[in-house]
């Protein structure tokens, strides 16, 4: 009995000791960051490294407004309820100056609303849902990564140029997949009125029955396929598709597949000739990108993924915004971010005043299986600004501040 009690006491003591004392530091700017690190490690570990690199560079150059930047990250357990709690914790206990982060769309939206309610500055780094800047957009929320709409809009001209009539659609059955397909159908129909969507498969996220889905798509005899599956679903889909000859003689347009996060695990299964959005880090020759890759590889002995660029650019954006606002006051930050220009590894981006979306773009190209490894070829950078609706249209989409 004694042993048990002692052990119990030890456990409790350890837990209490693990509670950190809230620290107050005068000469730092605190960035609070919330993300689903344990649920989405493949995307978020490189993302975190990107943030750390930016932080190092900024602090080595003397910080912002004479203050060092400090990053405090929290895991949201892939759950909006927990995300709001850690956001409250960051704001009230850690006294952070700004909030950023989130990957999953519903968590991004929960924090978007939190920012509105608490009147607190929030830069949504990664979530893709259009609602963050449109339907649920608000004064205090900005977003960095190109949205679902933008990435689909970048692919549609390529899809229309194929002049294929019969299209099959396959997407994960949740908001991201649904809205990507809805946008694709709408924009492609506008660009090519005779288009026909012959079948739709919407497997549950992470649980695609790849064999059956591939079979069903093939049986619909489409000329081309629009795919929104990613991660483990994509790997299963591609392997089954290769085995069953689904992709023979068919064009495939695929969202995000060129991102190293999703492309590299495909290894020798990597498909040839798919039209994709992505990030060909190995071939981008602009000086700003070369500098980024060199610094990243020197620091982490690993190549950057798209997440790295997003994490890096998020911190750079915050630093630029705070510099421009000369303060971390929320209202001044909001004013500063409208039209804010930031230098990123993808070149200069602007945070649009009308919908708070950055104009960061993406690379569009074709995939190629090069010696058992997937790469993008014939790619070009498409500026996000060209794929966003005009101010008048955005105004209709967005609630008034």
């Amino acid at each position, binding site marked *: 009995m004694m042993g048990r009690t002692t*052990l119990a006491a030890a*456990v409790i003591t350890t*837990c209490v000791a693990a*509670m*950190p004392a*809230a620290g107050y530091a005068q000469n730092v700017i605190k960035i609070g960051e919330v993300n689903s690190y*344990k649920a989405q490690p*493949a995307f978020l*570990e490189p993302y975190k490294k990107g943030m750390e690199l930016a932080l190092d560079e900024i602090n080595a150059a003397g910080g912002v407004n004479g203050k060092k930047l400090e990053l405090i990250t*929290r*895991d949201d*357990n*892939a*759950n*909006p309820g927990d995300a*709001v*709690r*850690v956001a*409250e*914790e960051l704001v*009230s*206990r850690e006294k952070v100056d700004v909030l950023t982060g989130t990957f999953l*769309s*519903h968590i991004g*939206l*929960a924090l978007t*609303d*939190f920012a*509105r*309610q608490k009147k607190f500055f929030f830069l949504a780094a990664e979530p893709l*849902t259009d609602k963050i800047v449109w339907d649920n957009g608000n004064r205090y929320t900005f977003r960095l990564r190109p949205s679902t709409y933008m990435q689909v809009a970048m692919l549609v001209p390529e899809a229309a140029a194929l002049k294929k009539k019969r299209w099959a659609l396959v997407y994960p*059955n*949740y*908001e991201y997949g*649904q809205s990507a397909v809805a946008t694709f159908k709408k924009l492609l129909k506008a660009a090519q009125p005779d288009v026909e969507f012959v*079948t*739709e*498969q*919407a*497997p549950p996220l992470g649980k695609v*029955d790849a*064999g*059956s*889905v591939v*079979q*069903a798509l*093939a*049986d*619909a005899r489409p000329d081309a396929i629009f795919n929104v599956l990613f*991660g*483990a679903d994509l*790997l*299963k889909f591609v*392997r*089954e598709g290769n*085995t*069953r*000859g689904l992709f023979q003689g068919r064009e495939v347009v695929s969202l995000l597949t060129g991102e190293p996060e999703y492309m*590299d*695990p495909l290894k020798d299964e990597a498909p040839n000739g798919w039209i994709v959005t992505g990030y060909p880090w190995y071939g981008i020759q602009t000086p700003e990108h070369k500098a980024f890759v060199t610094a990243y590889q020197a620091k982490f002995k690993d190549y950057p993924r798209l997440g790295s660029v997003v994490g890096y650019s998020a911190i750079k954006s915050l630093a630029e915004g705070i510099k421009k606002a000369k303060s971390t006051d929320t209202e001044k930050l909001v004013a500063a971010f409208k039209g804010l220009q930031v230098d990123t590894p993808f070149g200069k981006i602007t945070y649009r005043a009308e919908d708070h979306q950055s104009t960061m773009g993406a690379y569009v190209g074709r995939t190629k299986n090069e010696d058992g490894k997937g790469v993008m070829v014939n790619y070009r950078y498409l500026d996000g600004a060209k794929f966003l609706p005009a101010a008048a249209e955005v105004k209709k989409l967005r609630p008034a501040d």
Partner: protein
Amino acid sequence: MSFSSFIVQVLNGLAGASSLFLVAAGLSLIFGVTRIVNFAHGSLYMLGIYVAYSLTESVGGGLGFWPAVLLSAIAVGVLGAVVEVLLLRRIYHAPELFQLLATFALVLVIKDAALWIWGPEELLGPRAPGLAGSVSILGRQFPSYDLFLIVVGPVVLGSLWLLLTRTRWGTLVRAATQDREMVGALGVNQAWLFTAVFALGALLAGLGGALQLPREPANLELDLHTIGAAFVVVVVGGMGSIPGAYVAALLIAELKALCIWLGVVEVFGFTISFSKLTLVVEFLVMAVVLVVRPWGLMGRPQAPSRHAGTVEAPLRPVDNLFKAGAALLLLVLTVLPALTTQTPYVTVLMIDLLIAALFATSLHFIMGPAGMHSFGHAAYFGLGAYAAALLVRSLQLPMELTLVVAPLVAAAGALVVGWFSVRLSGVYLAMLTLAFAQIAWAIVYQWDTVTGGSNGLTGVWPSAWLADKAAYYYLTLVLVILSMLWLKRCLYAPFGYAMRAGRDSPLRADAVGIDVKRMQWVAFVIAGLFAGVAGALFAFSKGSISPESLHVGKSVDGLVMVLLGGLQTLTGGAVGAVTFTWLHDTVARNTEYWKAMLGAIILILVLLFPQGIAGFVRQIIYGKRDEIGGRA
């Protein structure tokens, strides 16, 4: 949608059924003999695929694939044996279901261990040597590996059948499935039998995982994705029935293939996407099967377990010591916001702790005193939360009024589910509640126009006078305490006595004129009502609500809380909820590998306090008196 395409889809379904069956067979075997609801079975499956990946990589592909598959199955089997000997064997005498808590902790530990060892990226294994390509069937290319899988399922089924019916060991296993006390009394070493069964179950899970290597990448989501489907198969087939598991796997896999084959269909002008139905088809099957056949397709009524841990002592009126303690706690809770103005986060966290405490207490109410295990309690939490959000957003009801109406919606949900569920018992009841909860989840997840779909609803903030966190804290405190007092009042009312009589001895309770099923139904509704209160409070404290709030993950959290606190102690739910939520918050903030850390802490708690934390405290304070009372 030609006939030939249908035939090929049937073949796809057969291949899928084999994969499902391999995992489910092991789970069914383990449950049948040890009565352990092995939540970590999906993790063992995941380990199987990861280990197979590493082994094939290390031998450089090629023919090394086949030995790698077998070796990884054996490795997972050995791990299963180790887990059984070091962990589960120590807690067989804990109250029923308690082992679930230990296996839940294992899930956390194994997941983080896999992340640490294999990294975050999905790992796509090689194709199987000799079966890499496809054969032509009805003009379609069909993977030869799938043909192999189609054969593997029945082969494993046959081998298991031979093992169970034609060997002495198999006879013992079957005997233990029916009556393990008797097997023990006849001189069979139960401990080793259990170890062997657990190891065999784990081996099958590992084999199932390893055989999937050419079909799907090793990734960290596999554990939870697999466990749900595996449980469904086991329950639909009838727990402990291996042929049943195969039939169920076949049924579910074929239905999925059928849904995918149908795709989007126009019926009477309505567009139905059968493809989207695959999200929930296994749970629909389970609900239907359990309603029609309460013990699964090929299961038999569970033999009453004579052991079931220590028998619970009758509830006693709370004494002065407890009252004094509660009063002191209440005093502390009342002055807390004033004491912590410097650290406002304490108030935020306390709101979450209180809500969790009420949720877990409501679950404890049906699990403990009413004796009905619910694996789908989050449904009522979620119903309350969504009802609150919808009433405020769509009907513009005042927030204060929704706090009253939303729990009624949750109770209405419990009324319907309860009507079906109370006709079942034991694990079948638990799984039926899970099926309904998952169906509710799927509806919420899909019904974009009303529930906001997977994104959920935002803008659910409390009225202005409650915007301050301290004010909301007091509202929560008052509602939670009133709810808890009411639940306690129920337990000491004649209704509560009748309910406990129904749990302890349904036959005798029936004989003295208690309508046991009706009592259980009412208990179900009451628990749903208060879960709804917790849900509504939750929605307004977060400002948004998403499908996670009624997902199986939330239900499992509730179970963990109740078991951690102590199923047989009145305060178990609340104590467990506070411990779990607080640990979660603290550990997640301070450790990178927080899941493993949390899992490890739970494991320590499990080994230290097999009666739960509150049960342990109770034992220290009242141990002597309970003993005397028990003898009297």
